[in-house]
C-alpha cells in the first residue's frame, strides 16, 4: 500500500496529537545576542567570534535590546501576551558546541506566552482530517475548500544559538565513525527564538501548514530570513497517537532533522504510521528522540540513549530582569506590519478576489507584494485579472523553472500591461499566454512583444467578413449541412477562419460574423 494510503488508513483509527517546537534565528539583528559579533551564515570557521561568544574566562553577556524587541514583535504578531517582567535563565548541560556549557535561555518567564495562529487547510490536505477527535469543535471550523484549524502558541522565548560541530573521518560528517570533531563558533550566540505550540495539531498537513504560516508571519515581520536549508528556521515535532474518541495522550516521540516543509510532513507521516504499527502489534511506543532521514523518508532512534536531562535552570546572574511597560509594548506594536490574515481579507473585501485565490496569494510574501504592486499600477478593477495571470501563467512558469518570483524576469507592470492588452482586445487570451511565455523568457514588455511579433488581434468586422465569405464559398457542402441543422459545424468554420487569419482574429467577432452570414 502506498504510504499516503497507509497514512489515511491509520488516521481513520488513530488520532495523532502533534506539537511543534520551532527555532528561528533572528537574522535581522546586526549583532549576536550577547556580544557585538556580526550575525551571518557560513564564512571561514571561527572568524565571527570574540571572548564573549567563545565563553572565555571572565567574559560577560550583554543582552541585545533589538533582539528582545524583535521577540516581542513576534509575540504580538501571534497573539501572545507580553510579559511585564521577564528574565533569562541558564540551561546547563555539557556539549562541545556550547562555549559556556550552559545556554542563556528562558525558563518560567518567557517574553511571550499564550498566543494563537489559525491555519487554512484546503483540498487534498484536508482529507487527512478524520471525524472522531474529542476537541474538533473547539479546534476546527469548516470552510468551502476545507477547514481552518486554531493552533495555540504556548510560548515564545529568546535564547542564544550554539556553535556547529564538524565531524571528520566518519561518513557524511556524522559522529559515527569520526576520528575527530571540530567546532565552529561563528553561529554561537546568534539570537534564536523558540516557539512552542500547544498539542493542538492533528495531521501532518496541519503541521506543515502551521510551519509555513509561521514562516510567512516571520518573513512579514522581517525578523528572520527563515532559511530552512541554512538552518535559520528549524522545526522539531512531538507526536503521539490516541484512539479516535479518546482524550488521554499517548507516549510521544520527538522528531528532529526535518529540514524542509516536505520533510516535516513526511517525517510526521512516517512516524504516525510507525507508531500505529507498534501499537497495533501490541507494542508500546518508547519515549525517545528520532532522527528523520529525508532520503530514506524514515525516522530512526538517535544513537545516544535518551537521558532524563536535569538542566538545573537558574536565573542568569550576569543580567538584571527586564521590566516592560505599556509604552514599550505599544511602541513595538506600532511597528507591526499588516499580517497575512489581514492582507488576505483586504484582497477579498477591497479587491474582490475569491477567498481561495486571496489565500494563495497572501500566503506567499513575494506573491502578495508583487500582487499589491500590480494592483497599485493597474487599479483595483484589474485585481482579479492580475491574480488570474499570477495564479496560472506566473505560478506555472516559476514551478517549471524551479525559481523564486524574485529570480524571474517578470515584474508587476508587465502583468498589468498584459491584462490591459487582453482587456482592450488587442490580443486574445490565447495570445496572452504566448506573450507571457515570451516576456518570461526575454523580460521584454508585452506591448513590445505584440509589436515585434505582429500579434495584434483583428477585430475589424470588414476584414473578417471578407475571409468568412471566402471560406463559405470554398465549403458549400458544409454550409448546406449547417443550414440543415448541423450547427456544430460552427467550430469547423471558426477554425478555418482563424487559420486563415494566422490566429489573430478576435474570436468573438469571428463567431458573430459567421453566425450572421451562415444564417443568411
Amino acid at each position, binding site marked *: 500500500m502506498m504510504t499516503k494510503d497507509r497514512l489515511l488508513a491509520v488516521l481513520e483509527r488513530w488520532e495523532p496529537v502533534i506539537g511543534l517546537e520551532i527555532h528561528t534565528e533572528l537574522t535581522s539583528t546586526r549583532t549576536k545576542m550577547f556580544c557585538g559579533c556580526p550575525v551571518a551564515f557560513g564564512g571561514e570557521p571561527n572568524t565571527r567570534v570574540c571572548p564573549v561568544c567563545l565563553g572565555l574566562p*571572565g567574559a560577560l553577556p550583554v543582552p541585545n535590546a533589538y533582539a528582545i524587541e524583535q521577540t516581542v514583535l513576534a509575540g504580538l504578531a501571534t497573539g501572545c501576551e507580553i510579559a511585564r517582567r521577564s528574565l533569562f535563565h541558564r540551561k546547563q548541560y555539557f556539549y562541545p558546541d556550547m562555549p559556556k556549557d550552559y545556554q542563556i535561555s528562558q525558563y518560567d518567564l518567557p517574553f511571550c506566552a499564550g498566543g494563537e495562529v489559525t491555519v487554512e487547510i484546503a483540498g487534498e490536505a484536508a482529507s487527512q482530517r478524520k471525524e472522531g477527535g474529542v476537541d474538533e469543535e473547539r479546534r476546527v471550523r469548516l470552510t468551502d475548500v476545507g477547514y481552518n484549524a486554531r493552533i495555540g502558541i504556548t510560548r515564545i522565548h529568546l535564547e542564544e544559538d550554539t556553535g556547529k560541530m564538524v565531524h571528520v573521518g566518519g561518513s557524511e560528517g556524522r559522529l559515527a565513525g569520526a576520528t575527530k570533531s571540530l567546532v565552529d563558533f561563528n553561529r554561537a550566540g546568534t539570537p534564536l527564538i523558540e516557539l512552542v505550540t500547544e498539542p493542538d495539531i492533528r495531521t501532518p498537513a496541519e503541521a506543515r501548514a502551521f510551519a509555513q504560516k509561521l514562516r510567512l508571519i516571520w518573513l512579514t515581520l522581517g525578523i528572520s530570513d527563515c532559511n530552512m536549508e541554512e538552518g535559520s528556521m528549524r522545526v522539531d515535532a512531538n507526536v503521539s497517537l490516541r484512539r479516535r474518541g479518546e482524550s488521554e495522550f499517548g507516549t510521544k516521540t520527538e522528531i528532529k532533522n526535518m529540514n524542509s516543509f516536505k520533510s516535516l510532513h513526511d517525517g510526521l507521516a512516517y512516524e504516525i504510521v510507525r507508531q500505529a504499527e507498534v501499537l497495533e502489534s501490541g507494542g508500546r511506543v518508547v519515549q525517545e528522540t528520532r532522527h528523520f532521514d529525508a532520503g530514506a523518508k524514515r525516522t530512526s532512534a538517535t544513537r545516544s540513549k535518551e537521558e532524563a536531562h536535569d538542566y538545573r535552570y537558574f536565573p542568569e*546572574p550576569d*543580567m538584571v530582569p527586564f521590566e516592560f511597560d505599556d509604552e514599550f509594548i505599544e511602541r513595538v506594536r506600532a511597528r507591526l506590519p499588516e499580517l497575512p490574515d489581514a492582507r488576505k481579507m483586504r484582497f477579498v473585501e477591497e479587491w474582490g478576489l475569491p477567498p481561495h485565490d486571496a489565500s494563495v496569494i497572501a500566503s506567499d510574501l513575494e506573491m502578495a507584494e508583487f500582487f499589491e504592486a500590480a494592483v497599485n499600477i493597474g487599479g483595483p478593477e484589474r485585481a482579479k485579472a492580475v491574480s488570474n495571470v499570477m495564479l496560472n501563467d506566473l505560478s506555472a512558469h516559476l514551478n517549471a523553472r524551479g525559481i523564486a518570483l524574485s529570480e524571474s524576469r517578470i515584474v508587476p507592470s508587465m502583468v498589468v500591461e498584459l491584462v490591459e492588452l487582453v482587456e482592450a482586445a488587442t490580443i486574445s487570451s490565447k495570445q496572452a499566454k504566448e506573450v507571457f511565455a515570451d516576456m518570461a523568457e526575454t523580460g521584454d514588455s508585452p506591448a513590445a512583444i505584440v509589436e515585434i511579433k505582429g500579434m495584434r488581434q483583428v477585430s475589424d468586422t470588414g476584414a473578417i467578413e471578407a475571409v468568412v465569405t471566402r471560406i463559405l464559398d470554398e465549403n458549400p457542402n458544409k454550409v448546406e449541412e449547417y443550414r440543415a441543422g448541423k450547427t456544430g459545424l460552427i467550430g469547423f468554420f471558426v477554425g478555418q477562419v482563424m487559420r486563415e487569419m494566422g490566429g489573430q482574429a478576435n474570436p468573438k467577432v469571428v463567431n458573430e460574423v459567421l453566425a450572421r452570414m451562415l444564417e443568411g
Partner: protein
Amino acid sequence: MTVDLSALTAPEIRAAILRGDLSAREVADGAFARIEACDDRVRAFNEVTRELAYASADRVDDMVRSGASPEELPPLAGVPVAFKDNMNLIGTRTTCSSRILANHESVYDCTAVARLIKAGGVPVGKLNMDEFAFGSSTENSAFGPTHNPWDLERVPGGSSGGSAAAVSAGMATITLGSDTGGSIRQPGAFCGVVAMKPTYGRVSRYGCVAFASSLDQIGPFSKSVEECALALNAICGKDPMDATSVDRPHEDFTRDLERGASGLRIGVVTDMLDMEGVAPEVKSATMAAAELFAALGAEVGEVELPSARYGLSAYYIIGPAEASSNLARFDGIRYGHRVADAKDVLDLYMRSRAEGFGPEAIRRIMLGTYALSAGYYDAYYGQAQKARTVIIRDFERAFADHDVLLTPTSPTTAFRIGEKSADPLAMYLSDVYTIPVNLAGNCAVSVPVGLGDDSELPVGIQLIGTHFAEGVVLRAARALERAVAFDVTPPLVRELQARA
C-alpha cells in the same frame, strides 16, 4: 638608590615623578627589587611582568620628559600596580591559581585592569589567590600558599591573599582583588592594609573570571585610605561590557576624605559581636574603634542585623550554585587543561576537570550542582534567595538611621598555615562579617586599626555603607585611619629596610 615602595604613597610617587626626582622606571625597579628580596618567602606573585611594567613606565617617563603638565599626567602615573590572577591582561597568563588554567594566556583585558593602567598604573605582576577565589587563606592555590608578611607562618587571608600581601610587603603600591564573600576585606585585615569591596555594580566585572556573578566585585588594596579612593576613582563606572555595572554620575572619592567623622551616624552591629568564635582581642578592638568615632564627634549607636547570621548558610548555597555554573566552561575543549588520551568527549570532560580542579573547587562545584538539581532547587537555592532578601531588608532598616555600620572584618586575626585547612566549616566562619555585605550588594572597607592584644597581628575594622555610599564610607575610614595612626609596615619589611 633603590626605591622603597613601603615608604611612598601613590600621590608621593606621582609627585616625585612629576618633579623629576624619580622616574617611573626607577619606581618599577623598586617594586622588582622588593619582589626579588622577599617574594621567595611571601609568594604573592604568580607572574612578574617586567616588560609590561617597563612599557607603561616608559610611557609615563616620556610624558614627563616631553613636559606634561600636572593636569596632563594621569592620577596614578608611575604607581606600581598588580592584579589578582583572575583578571585578564593581555601579555599575561590568567590562571586563577588553578591547574586547569595554568597555561591560559589572556587574549583580552579586564576592564578594571585596563582602567587602572590607563590611569597611569604600572603593572608589575599577577597575584596568587585561592583557586578560583574559593577560600579564605590562599592555601587553596595550585601553586602553593602565600605567606603573611606579618608572620610568614601565617596565612595572608583569602582569597585575594596575594593582593593583600603584595601591598603589605611593598611589592606593589595598589593591587586589585575580587570579593565574593570577603575575599578583599578579610585578607586586607589579616595583612594590615586598607581593602575595599565597592557596591555591586560600581566596578565592571568584565574580564574577571567569575566565581559567583551576583556577588563578585573587584576592589583595591592599598596602604592608605587616600590611595584606596584614588584607585576606586580609576576603576569605577559603567562598562558597556558588563550589564550589571551601573551608570552613575562621576564622583571624586577623595573629595570628602578629610571631612572627619563629626556628624556621621555610625551603627555598631552589636548582635554580630556576640557570636561564637569572635576573638576577644577583635571584640575589644572593635569597641575601641567605636569609642574613637564617638570621640571624633560621630553619633555612635547600636544596631542589629538579626538575619545576617543566616548569611553564611545562604552564601554557601548561592555562591557554589553560581560557581558550579560559571566553572562549567572549563571543560578542556577550547582552552585550559585537557587530558591527552581521552577516549570520548565524556571522558575528556570528566578527567580534564578532575585533574584540573583542586579539592575546594570540586567541593563547591558539587555543592552548587546539588543545590540547583531538580527537586532540591526550592529547598536550597530558592530558600537561600529568600534569606538574601531578608538580609537586604535588615540592611535597609539599619541604613535608614545610620550612615555607616561598624563590625570587625573577621572574627580572628591571621591564623596559621594549615590550621583550618582540614576543617572547611571553620574556614568558612572567617567570612561571617563580610558575607552579608555581598549578599546585600553594599559597599564596605576594611581599615587596619592596630595589632591584636593577644596575637600581635593586625586587626581590621569593617565599615559598611549602603549602595553607592563609598564616599561616606571612605570618609569614615580616613577619620579612623588618622585617629589610630597605625603603622602598616610589617616586620618583614622592617627587617629588609634595616638591612638596606
